[in-house]
């Protein structure tokens, strides 16, 4: 029986794209978080929550190979993270693009494929075809010939999503794509990401401030606070006792009849932040 459990556990690990054990990260001797254990499988949609400065972006930087972990192990597709991994699509946290940028959106999306190629090749158009299908997947075909500087926040996020999708990644890292979006555009973008996750079997990690719009879509939640990280299904993680343990102070998680949650007792509210 024990053997069976062990075997199924190995099988579980094998099917997981991202596995971390006792992982810790920090900057220059200062620990940001430590003792993190998580595993994400193919086609999982994961929300990453936590107060500002808790180290949500740090987690992405570790996954991207931009920053080495200070301890523990992390494996992506069975090997340690490395910079320039073509299996990862990344949308960094950005508030805006310069309004003077007159380059059309299609060109930026193309560069998601061809921007890593040296030399000058006016003949191949495979990047162009890939860009069009990525734009379609991101629901942004209509924006292809618009100039980047003229896009609204929601339109820009769709272009960034297309840029991340164009290299056909297995993992999508989205750093606060919902900030600066109103509720309707927030919902629209989440539906898009959810479609991509389901139709392409992509594992998406999305950093957000408000869990509620994400609840209908996500399989897992990572909550980072107080130098620690806890992971699991949303209903497991977002409980009063769990968050109380994480923060080390009394935290209340309240639910309304629609399933929306409000977290009370910490400085940062993860209910409705405009």
């Amino acid at each position: 029986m024990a053997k069976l459990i062990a075997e199924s556990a190995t099988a579980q690990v094998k099917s997981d794209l991202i596995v971390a054990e006792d992982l810790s990260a920090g900057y220059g001797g200062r620990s940001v978080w430590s003792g993190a254990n998580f595993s994400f499988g193919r086609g999982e949609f994961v929300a990453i929550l936590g107060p500002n400065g808790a180290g949500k972006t740090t987690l992405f930087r570790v996954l991207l190979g931009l920053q080495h972990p200070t301890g523990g192990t992390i494996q992506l597709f069975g090997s340690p993270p490395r910079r320039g991994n073509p299996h990862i699509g990344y949308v960094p946290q950005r508030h805006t693009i310069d309004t003077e940028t007159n380059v059309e959106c299609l060109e930026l999306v193309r560069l998601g494929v061809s921007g890593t190629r040296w030399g000058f090749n006016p003949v191949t158009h495979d990047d162009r075809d890939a860009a069009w299908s990525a734009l379609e997947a991101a629901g942004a075909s209509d924006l292809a010939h618009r100039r980047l500087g003229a896009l609204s926040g929601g339109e820009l996020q769709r272009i960034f999503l297309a840029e991340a999708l164009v290299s056909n990644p297995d993992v999508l890292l989205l750093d606060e794509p919902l900030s600066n979006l109103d509720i309707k555009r927030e919902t629209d973008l989440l539906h898009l990401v959810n479609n991509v996750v389901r139709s392409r079997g992509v594992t998406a990690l999305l950093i957000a401030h408000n869990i509620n719009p994400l609840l209908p879509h996500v399989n897992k939640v990572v909550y980072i606070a107080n130098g620690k990280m806890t992971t699991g299904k949303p209903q497991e993680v977002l409980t009063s006792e769990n968050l109380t343990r994480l923060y080390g102070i009394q935290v209340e998680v309240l639910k309304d009849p629609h399933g929306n949650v409000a977290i009370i007792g910490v400085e940062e509210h993860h209910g409705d932040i405009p």
Partner: protein
Amino acid sequence: MSFSLNILADLQEIWRYQFMQNAIEAGTLTAVVAGVTGYFVVLRKSAFTAHAFSEIGFAGAAWAVLSGISPLAGLLIGSNLGGLGIALLGRRAINRDTQIGIVLAFSLGLGLLFISLYSGYATQTYSILFGEILGVSQAQVLETMAAAAAILLVLGLVYRPLLFASLDEDVAEAKGMPMLALGMVFMVVVAVAVSFAVEVTGVLLVFSLMVTPGATAQYLARRPSTAIAASVIIALLATWTGLFLSFYTSPPVSFYITGEVFAFYLFVRFVYARFRGERLSQGSLLRPPVDRSG
């Protein structure tokens, strides 16, 4: 020399002068290089940076004149050191306009010191500041040609990664692009391009070929390759007509080049772009209006 309405005869007359031939050849090469490089300078928002190290180049050139070596060598040394220094300061250094302004001012002062120490005529320094395209020698044309070929080759090699790094630094970095190396290569390219453009426009007017055509082109085309072509054409037309007009009238070539690109920029920015914007918004009557609120 008098100007006739027969343009062909005028051009034949101009071509009979060796100094005009040299000027046209050097001007053409410089315009092509400046047009291409300038597009990236504008895209990377490093116009001020490029200007700063052209002034550092001026200090280098003044020092070269003082030391009896070629001003071009001094320019190349000065601008390259300045460019590499700024690239090494890191990716955000491009926007540090206060620090850059401080270095720029000091460089001009240093240049002034070298000029005042130089006992000979300061005409060489004057031509570094304002350009002396009519004094370009055949040897200089060949030098310019070699530099132009090298610059275009390097830009061809880094074309797509450089575009990517210019438009989306964070993603390019995450994709493993060597950002520091790209920044340094680009700064060296601009430093060399500026040093040769100085022969045509001078240190103080180098913007007219390095920035204005690139900036204008961004309003004319949304695809980088098309915009670069437009930028080159603007720089070429301004240089050629500048040489032509200056041949028959008294104002210097540099004035015509700066004046023409400026006038065309104003036209594109305020007349053409507005007209085009109006046409687009009229077109949107047929489609749902573009919502920019969200």
